[in-house]
């Protein structure tokens, strides 16, 4: 028990000030490996940008979607230069803020894409991991759970691993070389997570509004962010307490207010509300059925018109639906809830790309302590690797060779999403199981002293 107490005290020592000093210390110690990593990542991207593969990659449907293709951004800006609204026709589906951002940097696109999304993302993830606090976990640990707790030494390399997982992930590299604006969306979400974990409700609300403004799905991240702040401020999540409602209303006010302000500003950029049907109408009603790695295109390609509205509603509700049960289950673990939500958005959104997949995969090293409870990790990694390899093969067979058809590509899409879902649910199971062990002890014994096994019901 004393050993346990010692460890607990060391864990509890991570109060705000000490933690901050600690994190700065850690950050400086890791500056050298981080810089090395950055140099390697930038080199890889630079090499790919200059090679002939850049053209090929920016055409791939797995990497770009109608929402974030660079070709369409250029087209939209060209239309703007010709005096036509970029939202006329079905070309451009970016928000007006993107127009403003790219208006100046369109010639230096490569550098912009290399620098901002990936760097911002990795830096924010880096700092995020540093700030993850495990002191908020429960303080009644049974004696044999020591091996479950993470020592600071283990946690030392997690930020570097997170940065590495993101920067050197082939999905990210492909997405960056294709100059897909998915990287920018990822950067905004990463900044949002950083601000949430730092505790600044204002910035977090504003960045969440910005992320929602970009694509609507980060709306579901409102719940985990709210839960995190409530936990941080020690407000119990009780619907009858006025303090709960007070803070919720504050946060919701910041969020909705900034969303309104951002939307209003976008109106003033072009002077019209064209962007709303072009961006949000496009995301919701899925008119473009170009194949991608998602689940929408095949269904809606073969659907009768009079069922279309019904199934659009079903599919879109499917994205938002998991928020409520997951929030109820994971209300004490909002950081993991953020991870789950991001994963669910990446799988079920209407136009997913591999950039979205890379977004939640970067988070995985933060849960490396769950490895011992993961049950399907071999299967999942094989499935994901095989599917990633088969995507271009079956595309070629379908479109160019003509000896396959859309069913082949759809099968691989299904399998890929199945692998992702299995990965996410496996981590969920592992997390819950670890929580269970933390409260009930690692080596469970039945009443008569023999070893018990844990069964998922």
């Amino acid at each position, binding site marked *: 028990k004393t050993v346990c107490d010692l460890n607990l005290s060391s864990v509890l020592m991570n109060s705000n000030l000490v933690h901050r000093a600690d994190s700065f210390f850690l950050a400086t110690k890791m500056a050298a490996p981080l810089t090395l990593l950055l140099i390697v990542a930038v080199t890889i991207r630079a090499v790919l940008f200059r090679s002939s593969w850049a053209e090929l990659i920016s055409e791939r449907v797995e990497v770009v979607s109608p929402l974030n293709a660079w070709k369409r951004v250029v087209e939209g*800006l060209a239309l703007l230069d*010709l005096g036509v609204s970029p939202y006329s026709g079905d070309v451009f589906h970016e928000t007006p803020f993107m127009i403003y951002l790219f*208006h100046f940097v369109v010639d230096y696109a490569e550098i912009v894409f290399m620098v901002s999304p990936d760097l911002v993302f990795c830096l924010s993830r880096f700092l995020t991991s540093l700030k993850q606090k495990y002191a908020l976990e429960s303080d009644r640990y049974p004696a044999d759970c020591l091996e479950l707790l993470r020592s600071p030494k283990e946690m030392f390399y997690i930020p570097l691993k997170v940065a590495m997982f993101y920067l050197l992930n082939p999905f990210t590299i492909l997405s960056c070389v294709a100059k897909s604006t998915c990287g920018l969306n990822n950067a905004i979400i990463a900044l949002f997570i950083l601000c949430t974990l730092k505790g600044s409700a204002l*910035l977090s609300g504003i960045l969440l509004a910005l992320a929602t403004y970009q694509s609507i799905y980060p709306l579901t991240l409102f719940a985990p962010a709210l839960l995190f702040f409530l936990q941080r401020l020690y407000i119990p999540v009780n619907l009858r307490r006025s303090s709960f409602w007070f803070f919720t209303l504050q946060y919701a006010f910041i969020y909705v207010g900034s969303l309104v302000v951002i939307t209003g*500003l976008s109106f*003033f950029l072009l002077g019209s509300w064209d962007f709303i049907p072009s961006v949000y109408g496009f995301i919701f009603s899925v008119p473009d059925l170009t194949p991608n790695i998602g689940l929408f295109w095949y269904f809606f390609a073969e659907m009768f018109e009079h069922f279309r509205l019904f199934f659009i509603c079903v599919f879109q509700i499917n994205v938002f639906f998991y928020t409520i049960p997951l929030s109820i289950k994971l209300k004490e673990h909002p950081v993991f809830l953020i991870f789950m939500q991001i994963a669910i958005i990446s799988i079920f959104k209407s136009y997913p790309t591999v950039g979205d997949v890379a977004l939640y995969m970067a988070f995985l090293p933060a849960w490396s302590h769950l490895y011992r409870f993961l049950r399907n990790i071999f299967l999942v990694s094989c499935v994901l690797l095989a599917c990633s390899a088969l995507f271009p093969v079956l595309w070629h067979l379908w479109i160019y060779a003509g000896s396959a058809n859309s069913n082949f590509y759809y099968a691989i899409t299904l399998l890929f999403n199945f692998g992702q879902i299995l990965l996410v649910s496996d981590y969920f199971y592992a997390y819950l199981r670890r929580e269970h062990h933390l409260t009930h002890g690692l080596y469970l014994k039945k009443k008569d002293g023999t070893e018990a096994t844990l069964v998922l019901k």
Partner: protein
Amino acid sequence: MSHDLLQMHLKAVISCLVIVLYKVHTTKAGQFFSSGHTNNWAVLVCTSRFWFNYRHVANTLSVYRSVKRLGIPDSHIVLMLADDMACNYRNPKPATVFSHKNMELNVYGDDVEVDYRGYEVTVENFLRVLTGRLPPSTPRSKRLLSDDRSNILIYLTGHGGNGFLKFQDSEEISNMELADAFEQMWQKRRYNELLFIIDTCQGASMYERFYSPNLMALASSQVGEDSLSHQPDLGIGVHLMDKYTFYLLEFLEEVHPASQANMNDLFKVCPQSQCVSTPGHRTDLFQRDPGSVLITDFFGSVRKVEITKDTINLTSPVEPPIKRSGSSDIQIESLTYVDQLPVAEIIHQKPKQKDWHPPDGFILGLWTLILLVFFQTYGIKHLKHIF
């Protein structure tokens, strides 16, 4: 005296011969000119696609082959094949379509001209070909340019049922539509006589609604019966022909352009012992007796030759064109091709590219907000660290 008698006898014999020959001549001439047609057309349609319907394409191509052999030129044949068997990926003998097993007869050859291919074979296109209501841009090879002195052979094959024929596995033509199309053809005088042959299951149902004159119809099976396929070829892997068309092809191979085989022989092709189904025919709308209708009236293009003993003078001079007067006062200087159009006036100068700038209000508002948020988060006291 005997010399005169001999001469008289000779004259009598000669006149008798002449009379006899004349009579023969009139009957043959009667036959020649009583059919009333001057040109022949054929519309041959295969309505099924996919590899396992190889036999329908082979059916159509064997009728095409016979019709071409007997003299109808490609310009008078509208051949509609719904799928390409010769160049199908699954064809182990590419560029061939066999009608007999063991590759005895390749009906594809190297001079097949398909007018409607693949997805162009639709009910709409078929009816448009028959009625002539095609868009003006349709080429001549895709039109049925028949007139009121044309004998038309129409051959359909594919999958059918009681009262319909299936096109391309996605649509159908009904017997009423077909009958109405023929009535339109009759109203517009697009045929003299029409022979309709159909080789599908329950094919007789397709001609039971005809109501226009001068139509004769044959079908491979009665209502309620299926037309069966003939031989599979194990090397190619599919059935090569349907029974009815197989025996029809055998019958037509015996026919040559001068043959006198008539329709009654055609009705006897493929009795039930050979075909399993009962072929049917309909002649009540036809004016002539089927026994007097030659096979080559429909399947061949037997040219009517009229021997004349008059001479036609071909050496009369062609009149020179009349010179136009009074057109020499306006002298138009000759223009080169480039100068014919005042290009500079037509094409405006490209307007200078006006770059789009975001409105100032927007920039102001955005950066004010960003600064506000920054100071709110970090506090103003940090300013002195920055500066």
